[in-house]
């Protein structure tokens, strides 16, 4: 079965501290993995995808096929990073989302 698991509903991190949002997936095949972000009162938007191997707003995510994980990391949290983050995978053209993790950056 195709599934995305984000174990943390809420993650609170102090400004300047490292951030890691966990994501594990289940998929029989080679999925495409994404992180989406939703800032307060804004629409859902793509943050990054594993195939591009980019760093967006200081965030990176590495696909670990052995552990079936795609954790999102940032070395130094900023207050503007506070948002809802969704890990997602695409298989057969449709995207399957996790339940999301709310990241709260403490001043």
């Amino acid at each position, binding site marked *: 079965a195709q599934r995305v698991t984000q174990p943390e509903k809420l993650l609170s991190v102090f400004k300047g501290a490292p951030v890691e949002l966990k994501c594990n997936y289940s998929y029989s095949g080679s999925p495409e993995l994404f992180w989406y972000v939703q800032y307060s009162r804004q629409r859902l938007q*793509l943050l990054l995808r594993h195939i591009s191997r980019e760093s967006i707003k200081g965030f990176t995510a590495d696909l670990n096929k052995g552990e079936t994980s795609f954790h999102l990391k940032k070395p130094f949290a900023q207050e503007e990073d506070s948002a809802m983050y*969704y890990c997602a995978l695409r298989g057969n053209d449709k995207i399957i989302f996790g339940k999301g993790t709310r990241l709260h950056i403490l001043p």
Partner: protein
Amino acid sequence: GAGVSQTPSNKVTEKGKYVELRCDPISGHTALYWYRQSLGQGPEFLIYFQGTGAADDSGLPNDRFFAVRPEGSVSTLKIQRTERGDSAVYLCASSEGGGSGEQYFGPGTRLTVT
């Protein structure tokens, strides 16, 4: 340019009524997706259009839900005999080309069934 738009932004209806939710994709985007997001959950896939045809409607929960895209642009999600469990935010997204393009999301329609 304009992004994906959805109307209405909010809809309150009584149980048993019929509702229509509209999505205007980004001009030129051939792929269009509908998702449903219940409270505390991530978006859940409903249906995917490529042009005018539904390429994958496996996410529609039952036959009360139906979607159309007659001219390959605007899409309407139709829900018959609404139930309280249908209350959610309904999201629309569009992308260029086939299903591999980046999806751009609309602001959503919040449906409340009383």
